[in-house]
């Protein structure tokens, strides 16, 4: 039987087991929306802005190990989606974004709501397709899901012209997919793994540095086992938090620009560094020349060969899926007669504990002003460390990363690479839909939340009971902090005047709003909010507007050139 392109599109989504699709209708996708209407397997969530559709699909993907799916119309639908796509691209999140396009005969004529979707998204997708014939829809979508999820994951855009979605053809969903030009290497080279094992066993001051690749590859178990076997300290990047349990004594905290003193000093002073699913990002290692100025051996495990020796030269490179490589590495280590050098490790830990003693995350609490760190610590306490914490971008993001101790992967959801303000609320929506009974907190600021505040409406429509923890300091805090440190206290346009009354705003959308102005009310307010299991609660915490994020490695500086709170 012949089906239309639109019917085929929906059938493909069903075949892929897609549970939710986040989208916004428009002219070019009307046939596809018509088919959505006629079925109930794939649930559609109507967002209020296309950027939010992609972030919601992204949050859904990050908190599960599934592919997130978004559907947008042509022209402004696609351009609005671009920020979401770029966000997913920078953090290697598997997404399939389906966009409508003007009819094929109109393409290139500057038709109504026409943009070159494939051209605009090319630099921020793993791959993209323009489907010119309905008979290619099924194979293209099969490829899209496969590309999004396999190898180094990423977003894939499929652009479908309106006439193609109405064109009839035979449908059969391909069972297998083969792309001759695409063969990601998932198994690590055993020779290299043996070299790495030997290097690790001979290390006097080993350090494990693990990133988002561990989370994406679901390799936390293997990582934890490896770190315990090696007896080494382990640090996580912003993207890797939860990949190693934060409450474990071998965990030395997050590293990087706002990392702990012990993590950064460990990076700089180790003799063998094992990098796992991490890419030596500028926010992570600071100044490259400074980073390279000390002798140490580096082992790098990554699925993407292009990530290896991109910013930092490494001694042993292992291309492969992190989970597979770690499993093989563990097998080699377990079968080796040699054991890690206990005496050397003892000395190394003595040094690390000394650094730890600096207590770089300590802060002075106040009985007058609400300290943002205190809010996050209390959030951790009230949720018993078991919440999905979805963050926006800015100071609150760093405080959430530092003070909410993540013991499990996929619990910390944030835009690390692109740093997209406005990510939090829609992503939290996706997370809550993926985990209906779970506790989901969206940690945000008064700046970020306003970038996608309209999604409060979507949350109402679909009963998404997330808890919004707004650390409202009346400033674009991270901008203000940089202006204080590096621009002579000239707070150029970082003060937010004329803020809305967030309590009334939440109420206007049909939710509950709570204003919290005193430190003594923080715990009670959080308890009340989380007790309202079925309601979205917007907590407006008026926090200390002068608080800064410490420690801080200023841009362009080395990891040991850190500013600690006590220095000032």
């Amino acid at each position, binding site marked *: 039987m012949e089906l239309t392109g639109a019917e085929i599109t929906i059938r493909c989504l069903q075949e892929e087991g897609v549970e939710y699709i986040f989208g916004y209708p428009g002219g070019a996708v009307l046939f596809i929306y018509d088919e959505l209407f006629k079925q109930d397997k794939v649930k559609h969530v109507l967002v209020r802005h296309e950027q939010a559709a992609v972030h919601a699909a992204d949050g859904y993907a990050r908190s599960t190990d599934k592919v997130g799916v978004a559907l947008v119309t042509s022209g402004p639908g696609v351009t609005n989606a671009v920020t979401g796509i770029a966000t997913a691209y920078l953090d290697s999140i598997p997404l399939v974004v389906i966009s409508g396009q003007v009819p094929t005969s109109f393409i290139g004529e500057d038709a109504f709501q026409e943009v070159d979707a494939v*051209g605009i998204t*090319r630099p921020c997708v793993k*791959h993209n397709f*323009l489907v010119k014939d309905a008979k290619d829809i099924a194979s293209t979508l099969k490829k899209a899901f496969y*590309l999004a999820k396999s190898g180094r994951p990423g977003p894939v855009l499929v652009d479908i012209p309106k006439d193609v979605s109405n064109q009839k053809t035979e449908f059969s969903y391909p069972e297998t997919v083969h792309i001759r*030009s*695409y063969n990601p290497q998932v198994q690590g080279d055993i020779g290299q793994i043996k070299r790495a094992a030997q290097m690790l066993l001979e290390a006097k001051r080993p350090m494990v540095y693990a990133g988002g690749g561990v989370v994406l590859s679901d390799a936390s178990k293997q990582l934890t086992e490896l770190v315990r076997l090696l007896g080494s300290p382990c640090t996580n990047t912003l993207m890797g938090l939860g990949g190693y349990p934060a409450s474990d004594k071998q965990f030395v905290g997050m590293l990087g620009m706002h990392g702990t003193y012990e993590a950064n000093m460990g990076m700089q002073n180790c003799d063998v560094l094992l990098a796992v699913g991490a890419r030596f990002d500028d926010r992570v290692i600071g100044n490259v020349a400074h980073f390279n100025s000390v002798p140490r051996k580096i082992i790098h495990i990554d699925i993407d060969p*292009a990530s290896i020796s991109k910013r930092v*030269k490494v001694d042993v490179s292992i291309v492969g899926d992190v989970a597979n490589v770690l499993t093989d590495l563990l097998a080699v280590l377990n079968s080796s007669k040699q054991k890690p050098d206990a005496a050397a490790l003892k000395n190394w830990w003595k040094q690390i504990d000394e650094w730890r003693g600096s207590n770089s995350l300590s802060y002075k609490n106040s009985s007058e002003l609400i300290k943002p760190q205190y809010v996050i610590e209390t959030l951790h306490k009230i949720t018993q460390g078991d919440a999905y914490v979805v963050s926006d971008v800015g100071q609150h993001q760093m405080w959430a990363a530092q003070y909410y101790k993540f013991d499990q992967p996929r619990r910390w959801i944030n835009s690390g690479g692109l740093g997209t303000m406005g990510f939090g609320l829609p992503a939290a929506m996706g997370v809550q839909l993926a985990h209906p009974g779970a506790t989901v907190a969206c940690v945000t600021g008064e700046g970020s939340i306003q970038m996608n505040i309209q999604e409060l409406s979507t949350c109402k429509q679909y009963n998404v009971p997330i808890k919004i923890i707004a650390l409202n300091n009346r400033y674009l805090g991270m901008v203000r902090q940089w202006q204080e440190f590096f621009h002579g206290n000239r707070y150029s346009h970082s003060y937010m005047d004329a803020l809305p009354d967030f309590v009334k705003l939440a109420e206007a959308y049909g939710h509950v709003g709570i204003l919290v102005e005193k430190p003594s009310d923080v715990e009670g307010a959080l308890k009340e909010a989380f007790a309202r299991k079925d309601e979205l609660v917007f907590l407006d915490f008026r926090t200390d507007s002068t608080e800064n994020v410490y420690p801080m490695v200023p841009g362009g500086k080395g990891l040991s050139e850190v500013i600690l709170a006590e220095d000032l």
Partner: protein
Amino acid sequence: MRHIISLLMENEAGALSRVAGLFSARGYNIESLTVAPTEDPTMSRMTIVTSGSDEVIEQINKQLNKLVDVVTVMDLTDGDHIERELMLVKVLAQGDAREELKRIADIFRGRIIDVSDKTYTIELTGAGSKLDSFLQAIDRGLILETVRTGASGIGRGDRILKL
């Protein structure tokens, strides 16, 4: 250092722009880029001449490999290879110069492929440096137009780039 990179890619709309976009987005140099379908019409072969430090060249090769449409990549500079470029030069060929130009074209094994009473169009093939030498050998004032294809390259002997 100058590198000549050969690659096979899917002969699909947009594949070329993915390669060109990669070079501009990541700030790599392109000295020349040539592309045409191969004996297998589903595949195109591209030759890119670029330059950069060893680290940059390594990244270029890896990033090219990462493109989904790229089937295989070979840095020809890593081994023995041959490169050839085609140039067409239209020159003012009048009076004494007419004979002189013919002689220089012969020395460079060029061929005159179009003649008018005022002009010659000379076809010349070779490595880029040979084409440069030819242009230096003739009076610059006589050159009306030049068009060069950019280098195409192939490995010597057993060095074969195939799927």
